[in-house]
């Protein structure tokens, strides 16, 4: 059993009571709400005549269903409009702060939480969205929950949970040029598998993680859930404090300094004990790309697609099944390189890679190498929030993207899950900075996704084929 980790300390601080069956009632200090998983939850509490317990600790936005162009109300899609109206009505009725379409702070919930300074170290954060793990970048326990649990948090401010084990994932050394946080997390999931994290919280540590900026740490923690973990986190440090200072919802002046000292005390102790420790060498990680239908089915960009094992153990048979299913769906041949495969769509955005540093890096590469979107490729930049969008525009990034043949949109989840009009068509192959390459994920039941870093997406969009970003030069 883990001991003296940040996870243990924060869990302890938020334990309301322990139940005989082995579960703990955990207080949720920040509840983030969006339009897709909340309407039924609000109905559930209404049916019971309950109110929102901590409305001042509850914040909402509209992100999943919002169009990224033509956002005039009522929205063209009547179902989307209905969901938005439900959210607006529910927030108003319960006194919840809402950043809806038209608000300067609207954006993807996991982008705006940190950006507005709502996310602090040492919090327990919950949201009806699996990518809540993003907020772990600050040293918070950040949990994705379902709708019944959303109702629980609304009405009681609490969740009933079994304490997971804690696995430390150490990434040592340093990363090579052209390798990003996205490649690191894809490499981790590749190594541990998509179910490797079941029953665990992941603590990311080691020199590679320590030298990451906050936005890179968010990309890393964001995909913890794709590795099966309940959440992922990084211990807070000076980088964390510097990121948070002066943000809208952090304490100001002297109170901030007091809070910072408290936050830094929460880090895992030197004598902390973990249920498991895994180590990866930073130098060995290359730009990663998925080739199949789970985020664990990935190779380094220059690698060959896997061969299908012919015989062996039951486990090998299952692997063979997963490999052949993935290859068949994607239309790829076993053992062949992925590099050189033609693509039709490029997407930069999502809670994984829709932050300002992602857009800056993409624009830097475009400008430096005079890149233009290849003929026949549809390329989309969707900022993660309206703040990211305005920041990008203030630096002229929108003009760089548009001149290079990209569309520059308004903020939302967009083509990560395609609940809005941004969708793949037919069998289109999309290089995407998002987090899931599941069958049909990007809106076409037969559409195909290759997950990668923003830099790699830019490289592929510019050549029209799968390309090693390192061949562009720095």
């Amino acid at each position: 059993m883990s001991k003296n980790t940040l996870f243990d300390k924060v869990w302890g601080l938020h334990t309301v009571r322990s139940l005989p069956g082995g579960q703990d009632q955990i207080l949720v200090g920040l509840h983030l709400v969006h339009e897709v998983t909340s309407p039924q939850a609000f109905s559930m509490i209404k049916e019971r005549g309950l109110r929102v317990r901590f409305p001042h600790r509850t914040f909402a936005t509209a992100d999943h269903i919002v169009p990224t162009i033509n956002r005039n109300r009522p929205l063209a899609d009547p179902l989307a409009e209905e969901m938005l109206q439900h959210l607006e009505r529910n927030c108003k009725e319960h006194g919840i702060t809402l950043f809806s379409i038209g608000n300067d702070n609207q954006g993807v919930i996991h982008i705006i939480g940190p950006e507005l300074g709502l996310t602090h170290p040492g919090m327990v954060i919950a949201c009806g969205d699996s990518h809540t793990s993003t907020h772990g970048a600050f040293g918070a326990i950040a949990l994705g929950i379902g709708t019944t649990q959303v109702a629980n948090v609304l009405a009681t401010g609490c969740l009933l949970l079994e304490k997971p084990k804690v696995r430390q994932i150490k990434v040592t050394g340093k990363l090579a040029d052209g390798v990003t946080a996205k490649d690191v997390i894809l490499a981790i999931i590749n190594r541990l598998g998509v179910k490797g994290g079941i029953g665990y919280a992941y603590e990311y540590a080691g020199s590679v993680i320590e030298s990451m900026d906050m936005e890179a740490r968010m990309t890393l923690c964001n995909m913890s859930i794709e590795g099966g973990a309940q959440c992922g986190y990084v211990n807070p440090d000076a980088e964390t404090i510097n990121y948070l200072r002066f943000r809208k919802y952090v304490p100001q002046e002297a109170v901030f300094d007091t809070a910072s000292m408290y936050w830094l005390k929460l880090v895992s102790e030197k004598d902390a004990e973990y249920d498991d420790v895994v180590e990866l060498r930073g130098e060995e990680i290359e730009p990663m790309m998925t080739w199949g239908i789970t985020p664990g089915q990935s190779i380094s960009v220059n690698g060959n697609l896997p061969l299908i094992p012919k015989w062996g153990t039951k486990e090998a048979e299952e692997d063979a099944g997963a490999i052949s299913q993935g290859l068949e769906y994607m239309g790829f041949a076993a053992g062949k390189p992925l590099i050189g495969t033609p693509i039709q769509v490029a997407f930069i955005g999502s809670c994984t890679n829709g932050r300002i540093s992602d857009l800056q890096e993409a624009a830097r590469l475009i400008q430096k190498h005079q890149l233009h979107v290849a003929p026949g490729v549809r390329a989309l930049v969707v900022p993660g929030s309206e703040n990211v969008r305005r920041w990008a525009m203030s630096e002229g990034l929108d003009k760089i993207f548009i001149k290079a043949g990209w569309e520059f949109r308004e903020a939302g989840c967009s083509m990560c899950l395609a609940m809005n009009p941004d969708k793949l068509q037919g069998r289109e192959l999309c290089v995407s900075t998002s987090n899931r390459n599941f069958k049909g994920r990007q809106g076409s039941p037969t559409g195909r996704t290759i997950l990668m870093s923003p830099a790699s997406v830019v490289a592929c969009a510019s050549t029209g084929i799968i390309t090693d970003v390192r061949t562009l030069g720095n």
Partner: protein
Amino acid sequence: MNSKIIKVSGGAFHLPGNDIDTDRIIPARFLKCVTFDGLGEHVFEDDRAQLKGSHSFDNTKNKGCTILIAGNNFGCGSSREHAVAALQCWGIKAIVAKSFAEIFHGNAAGNGLVCVTVGDYDHQLLLTVLEQPQPDEWMIDLQSMTIQTSIAGKPRSPIECSMPESDRERLIAGTWDTMATLLEAGGQIEETAARLPYMAH
């Protein structure tokens, strides 16, 4: 108080494959709704369309079955509770898998959808039973934590299955509605909040 769930009986069928994600169980376009009503007809909609009638959920033999046999990491991906709702609307009352993704498991537990796990060997045994020409109804007994099967009236040795003890207790006692349990803490909730400086802001 919910209904007590002590036993689940009914026909069983197999959905092959591991890592069946919730996008596949209920594609995102069906999440544009403000209630969970009517999701049952869209369960696995895109997978079913691609298999043109040969998907497990389209097999007429499986109609009316209540027990689903799945592989590893069932329900991974998105937190959408719509996945649990869609399966329940279709008629699924229990899932036997090698493992479940955590959020799906939590969603199921809070809605009285029974999720039990079995090891590789027992999983294979269960599949062998399903392959027989006349498998009878199965029974999952949460008191003895066993799956009882028989073929043409001849009972086979019960197979042990597991689930977290707290979930099991709650299903049997009919207290799987987590809201009621959480509300019992009453003022302890505010006391805990008062100890956390950030809760005041």
